[in-house]
């Protein structure tokens, strides 16, 4: 049994950054009011949601919460300290526990400044299985501790 890894719950502040195209101009999209607004980037990818089947996730997350699967380099998310496999518990005080994937996406896109409550502790570790015949098999298991 390995020693318990470092788990923590952190609060992160995130400032979104406007997206720029290849010429350096801001990319504008239509907003809900009908006018044009700059498109803002946060810089990470997430998976999960109460309506998703977590068996289709290759990382083996233990529940249907919102997990960060990729953080783009040089993005506000990276600067804020967000890491891969972080579980986002709250966004600006909104609890994500019972939201579906699309709703979480809409929520994250709506806000300009994000205050994330993040739980960090997902770790992959390896165990050794040795059966009575003496052969050993290495099994890689992903466990949230």
């Amino acid at each position, binding site marked *: 049994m390995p020693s318990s890894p470092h788990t923590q719950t952190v609060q992160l502040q995130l400032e979104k950054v406007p997206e720029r195209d290849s010429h350096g101009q801001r990319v504008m999209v239509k907003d809900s009011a009908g006018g044009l607004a700059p498109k803002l980037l946060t810089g990470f990818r997430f*998976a999960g949601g109460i309506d998703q089947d977590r068996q*289709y996730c290759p990382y083996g997350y233990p529940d249907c919460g919102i997990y960060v699967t990729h953080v783009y380099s040089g993005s506000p998310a990276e600067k804020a300290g967000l890491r891969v496999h972080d579980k986002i518990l709250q966004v600006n005080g909104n609890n994500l526990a019972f939201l579906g994937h699309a709703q979480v996406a809409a929520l994250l896109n709506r806000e300009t400044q994000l205050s994330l409550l993040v739980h960090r502790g997902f770790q992959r570790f390896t165990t050794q299985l040795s059966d009575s015949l003496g052969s050993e098999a290495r099994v890689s298991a992903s466990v949230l501790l």
Partner: protein
Amino acid sequence: PPTDSDNPNELGGLQQHQQQQQQQQQANQDDNWGETNTALTGATSETGMSADEMARYSRELDAAAAAAASADAAGFDCGRAMATVLSVTLGLAAFISPLVMLKECSVACEGKLISLAFRLLILLVATWCLFFRRGRASMPRVYIFRVLILFLIFVITFAFWLFYGVRVWQYQESDYSSIVEFAVGLTDALLFVHYLGVVLLEIRHLQARYAIKVLRSPDGESHIYPVGELSIQRAAVLVLQQYAVDFNAFNPYLEQAYASARNRSAHRRSYRFYDVDQGSQANGSAAAGGDNGGGGNGGGHSSSGRHQRRGSAAGGGGGGGSRSAADRFYDECEYERRLRKRRARLVTAAEEAFAHVRRATNSELMGPQHLPQHMSQQQQQPIGKPMSAYEAAQTVFPTMLRALQKYLRITKQQPRYTTDMVLHHLTNCIHYGLSAKAFIERYLTQGPVVEDPRAPAGRKRQTWTLLCDCMPSRSLDDGVQFCLRQGDVSLFCTVKRIPFFSLGEEVFDNKRHKFVLRLNSETSV
């Protein structure tokens, strides 16, 4: 086909007196009812062979035996002998020709003579290796390639002798080295003909071109074999060779188990219908309910209970003639179940029997004065003195005799094995130190045809009939069908062409050959 009365050595006959309590199996009880019994099927053994079936079988066997005997009585098959004699004579004449052409030697041509000698030696060895083998089969039509080779040999020998006669005898050719070269030329030609023979007779049919599907008629077992370019008769020989090894032995009693069991037990179980007019079967719906299912053996209680149930259920339905699909399905399930139960008992009994026997250690062989040292191993003390494998087999055989007998009964194999054969097999297994499962493997399945100890028409020689729409010397082609028949067994063969495969290549480019993980829901924010 034997009955119990004919062959007292059989397992069934030996243990017959033990079976008295299985009333529904013993047809002997019919003899007690002799004065009122006018049963139509005179079944006298549990294998279900009635008198008219026996007559039919014996007629067929006699016909097959007569056909084989006529070939054997003369000592050899005339057609085969003629072909062999002709080819041997021709080959010998061609072989000796170079030697006869030579006269006394001189120093200048010794090199050529030595090479001639070696070529003749190689030709001799190659011919012996290739052509002097026991034939596998005799075929109805002429074997075209063999005739071609023989014709070529004849033409070459004739041509060479013609030139020799004209040049050397008539014109008195005196240059000896040219005569030696002439003889060397003949030897070369014969060697090349031998090469042609190898390619035509042995190599051409090795590459698979066609697939022959072989279907056996009475029970529907089928296998498929790849063959090369062959004539139909040669393909038939190949099919028969594979049939001997791959197919399960055909047991005619298995086929009759359903039909006769229903009719027989219909007679015994319910009250009988006696029709004064001819040709009555077990008709009447009351008789239709009696069916033993499967092998018609087994414990009486369950089957009698089933009889009562089935009688009421099937009574209103069809008579003894047709059988519904539900009946067949139920019968087969029951048969499978009972077969598995008996097989489990057989395996257990065999393992117990083999557990009693083990190889004697050196100390046991030496004598009883070493016994007190082994007192601590109580469970491994030997019982009695060391004995031979046969005696050991005889001692442990009765413990599994009953289980083996019942299993053979349910798979309808008991006419195949006598007590002596089983004892001999058991002796072999003990002698070589085999396990119980190796011993009973022979009895668990019907076994391949080549191992069937009661194969018709003997083991050395079998007579099959080839039925074909076109001439059997024609070569195989897609869609050709032919049939091989021997007695009850028919092998229907269909030829299909194996398609031409066009292989392409796909190359891995390591820079582009990358993978990404797939998540069902992932959004970029």
